[in-house]
C-alpha cells in the first residue's frame, strides 16, 4: 500500500506554471478517471488551489515507478513537455507524503503561515474525490487524518489566531475593544484599495452599519454599494464623527483631516463611548494628540505594522506545537496502515497455507489407499485446524497490539519469505 504524491507549489514553481498546472473540478475528476483507467493509480485525489497543485495516489500493487508515471501523466494532461516541469515538481512517498499533506492542512506549508482557507480547500478536494469515487480506504483515512490535524492545530495552537495583515490587525483590535462587531458602527474615510481591504474584513466580522466618506463621491458610492454602506458627503465630516465606534481613515493630504478639537467635540456629543481610530494614511490623517483623549484608541500604520510583525513572530513560535500534533497524527495513521498491511499479508498467508494443505493432502493420501473417507476427512480437518492456529494467533496479536504493528516495518520481506507474491493485475 504505497502512497505517492506529486505536486508543485508557490515555493517550487512560478505563478505562470502554477496557472498552467491548475485543475478545475471537472479536470480533477477527469484526471482521477484517467489515472485509474490507465492502471497508474488505484486511488487518486487532486488538491488544486491558487498556490499549489498536488496529486495524491495509491498505485496498483507491484507497480514500478508509479511516481514517474504520474509525473508524465501530469505533464501530458496539461499539454506540457515533461521538461517544462523539471525542477518544479516535488515527490513524496508514504510517510513523507502523509507528513506533507498534514503540514498543508495545518497551514504550515502556506504562503501565509497558519492561514485558515487551506483547510477548507483540503476538505473540498476530499469531498469532490470521495463523491466521484476516486478515493479508497487509504486516501480516505489519510485525508480524514489531515482534516483532524487542521482542526486540532487551529484549536490547540495560536498559529492562525493573530492577524498578520495590517487591515485585519485593525479589525481584530476593534474586537479587543468592542467584542463582537455586529452591533457596532464603522465610518470609512477614503475609498481606496486600503480602505476596501478593511471594509471587507469588517463585513466578514459582521459589521452591518457602515458609512463611507470620500473627496471624490463616486468612489465612495462604489465602495458603499459593494458592501451595503451609506455615503456621507465630504462636507459633513465633522458631524459624521459623532456616529461611529470605529473610524478608518486612508486619504492623501499634507495635513491631518481629524484634529484633536474635532474629535474632542465628537466624543462629548457621543457621551464618551469608546472610539477606535485606525489611521492608514501617510502622511497621517489623525492629529497625534487625539490618542490622549479619554476613551479613544488611536492606531496609525506604523503601530499596526509593528503588531503584524509581532504576530508573525508569534505564529512562527507556534510551529513546534503544530509539528507535535502532526507527528502524533502521522503515528496514528502509520499504525493504522501497518495494521491493514499486516492483515493483508496474513490473509495471503492463510490462502497460501490452504493451497499447500490441499496439495500436500492430495500427494500423501494417494499413497495411503487403506484410509477410509472418514479418516481422510478427519486428517484434512486436523490439518486445517493446525494451519488456522498458525495464522490466527498472530492475526489476533496484531489486532490487539498496536506497537507490534509499528514494529512490522518491512512486510514485503514476509511476502518474499513465504512466496506470497501476488500476480500483477
Amino acid at each position, binding site marked *: 500500500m504505497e502512497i505517492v504524491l506529486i505536486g508543485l507549489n508557490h515555493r517550487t514553481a512560478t505563478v505562470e506554471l502554477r496557472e498552467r498546472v491548475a485543475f478545475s473540478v471537472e479536470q480533477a475528476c477527469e484526471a482521477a478517471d484517467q489515472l485509474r483507467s490507465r492502471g497508474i493509480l488505484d486511488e487518486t485525489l487532486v488538491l488544486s488551489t491558487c498556490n499549489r497543485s498536488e496529486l495524491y495516489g495509491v498505485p496498483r500493487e507491484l507497480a514500478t515507478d508509479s511516481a514517474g508515471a504520474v509525473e508524465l501523466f501530469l505533464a501530458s494532461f496539461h499539454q506540457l513537455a515533461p521538461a517544462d516541469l523539471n525542477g518544479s515538481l516535488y515527490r513524496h512517498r508514504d510517510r513523507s507524503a502523509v507528513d506533507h499533506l498534514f503540514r498543508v492542512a495545518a497551514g504550515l506549508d502556506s504562503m501565509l503561515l497558519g492561514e485558515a482557507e487551506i483547510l477548507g480547500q483540503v476538505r473540498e478536494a476530499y469531498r469532490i474525490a470521495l463523491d466521484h469515487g476516486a478515493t479508497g480506504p487509504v486516501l480516505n483515512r489519510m485525508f480524514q487524518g489531515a482534516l483532524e490535524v487542521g482542526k486540532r492545530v487551529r484549536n490547540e495552537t*495560536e498559529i492562525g489566531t493573530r492577524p498578520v495583515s495590517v487591515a485585519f490587525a485593525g479589525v481584530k483590535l476593534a474586537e*479587543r*475593544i468592542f*467584542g463582537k462587531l455586529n452591533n457596532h458602527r464603522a465610518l470609512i474615510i477614503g475609498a481606496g484599495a486600503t480602505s476596501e481591504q478593511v471594509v471587507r474584513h469588517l463585513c466578514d466580522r459582521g459589521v452591518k452599519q457602515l458609512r463611507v466618506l470620500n473627496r471624490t463621491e463616486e468612489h465612495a458610492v462604489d465602495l458603499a454599494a459593494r458592501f451595503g454602506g451609506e455615503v456621507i458627503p465630504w462636507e459633513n465630516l465633522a458631524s459624521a464623527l459623532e456616529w461611529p465606534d470605529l473610524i478608518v481613515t486612508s486619504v492623501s493630504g499634507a495635513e491631518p483631516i481629524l484634529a484633536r478639537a474635532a474629535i474632542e467635540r465628537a466624543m*462629548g456629543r457621543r*457621551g*464618551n463611548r469608546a472610539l477606535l481610530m485606525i489611521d492608514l494614511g501617510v502622511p497621517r490623517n489623525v492629529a497625534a494628540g487625539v490618542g490622549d483623549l*479619554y476613551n479613544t484608541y488611536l492606531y496609525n500604520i506604523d503601530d499596526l505594522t509593528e503588531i503584524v510583525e509581532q504576530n508573525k513572530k508569534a505564529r512562527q513560535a507556534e510551529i513546534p506545537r503544530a509539528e507535535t500534533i502532526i507527528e502524533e497524527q502521522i503515528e496514528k495513521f502509520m499504525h493504522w496502515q501497518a495494521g491493514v498491511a499486516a492483515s493483508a499479508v496474513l490473509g495471503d498467508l492463510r490462502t497460501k497455507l490452504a493451497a499447500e494443505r490441499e496439495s500436500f493432502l492430495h500427494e500423501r493420501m494417494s499413497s495411503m489407499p487403506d484410509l477410509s473417507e472418514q479418516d481422510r476427512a478427519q486428517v484434512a480437518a486436523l490439518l486445517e485446524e493446525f494451519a488456522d492456529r498458525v495464522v490466527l494467533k498472530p492475526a489476533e496479536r496484531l489486532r490487539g497490539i498496536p506497537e507490534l504493528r509499528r514494529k512490522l516495518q518491512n512486510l514485503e520481506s514476509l511476502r518474499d519469505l513465504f512466496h506470497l507474491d501476488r500476480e500483477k493485475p
Partner: protein
Amino acid sequence: MTSPYVLSTLLLYSVSLALYIWNLREPSRMAGIGATVCLIGALGLHYLALLERSRLIHAVPYDDLFGSLSLFAWLLAATYLVLEAIHRRQAVGPFVLPIVLVVFLLAHASEARPIKAPPAQGPLFAFHVTLNILAYSAFAISFVLSVIFLLQNRRLRDHRLGMVGWRFPALDVLERMTRSSVLIGCGSLAAGMTAGFIWAHRLQGVYWDGDPKVIVTILILAAYIGYTFLAQTAAWRGARASVLCILNFMFVIFSYSIVNRYLSHFHRYF
C-alpha cells in the same frame, strides 16, 4: 488544616489555578477543560469541608471569621464558574483563583473549635449571612474584572498588546461582566440586609441597634448602586468606572476587616 477534604480542596484549587495560568500563556483545549473540571471538583470538596466544619463546631460553618472566609472563598469560586459558563471566557480565572486560594488558606489555617453558646439562629439568619457573603464574592469578582479592564485598557492605549493582550476578553465584555457582577452583588446585599433586619427584629425587638457595621454596609450598597449609574454616564464610562469599582471594593475589605474587628459589636467574630 489536616482534614482530607481541606487538603484535597487545596490541591484541586492549586491544580486548577496552574492550568488556568498555563491556558492563558499557551492556550490548550485540554488545559482549559482540565482547569474547569478541577475547579468544579474543588468546589465539591470545599462544600464537604464546610459541612465537616459545621459538624465540628455544632453550628453553621460561617459562625466564626474563618468559617465565613471559607464560605466567601467557596462563593467566589462558584460565582466565577457561573460567569465563565455564561461568557465562555477563561482568561479571568488566573486572577480570581489566587484570591480564592489565599482566602481558603486563611480560613483553614486555624482548627475549628466548637462554639460555647450558639446565638439564636435559624434559616433567616442563614439567608442573611449567605446572601451577604455572596454579595462580597460578586464584588470581589467585579474588582478582579476592573483590574483586568484597566490593564487591558492601558495595553491597548499604549499599543502593547503582547502575548496575553490578545487572550483577554474585549473591554466591552469586561465592562458587561463587571456590571453583571455588581448587579448580583447589589441584589444579594439588599436581600441579605433585609433578612438581617427581620432576624434582628425577631431576636431583639428592634430592626437596628446602632451597630456601625450596618451603616457601613448601607454605604457599600449605595456606593455600588452609584457605580452602576455612573458607569453609564459620559464622564465615568470606561476606565474611570473601573477605578471606582476598585475603590468600592476597598470599602468592602474595610468593612470585612476593620469594621468587623474593631467597630462592630454585633458582627464581630472574635
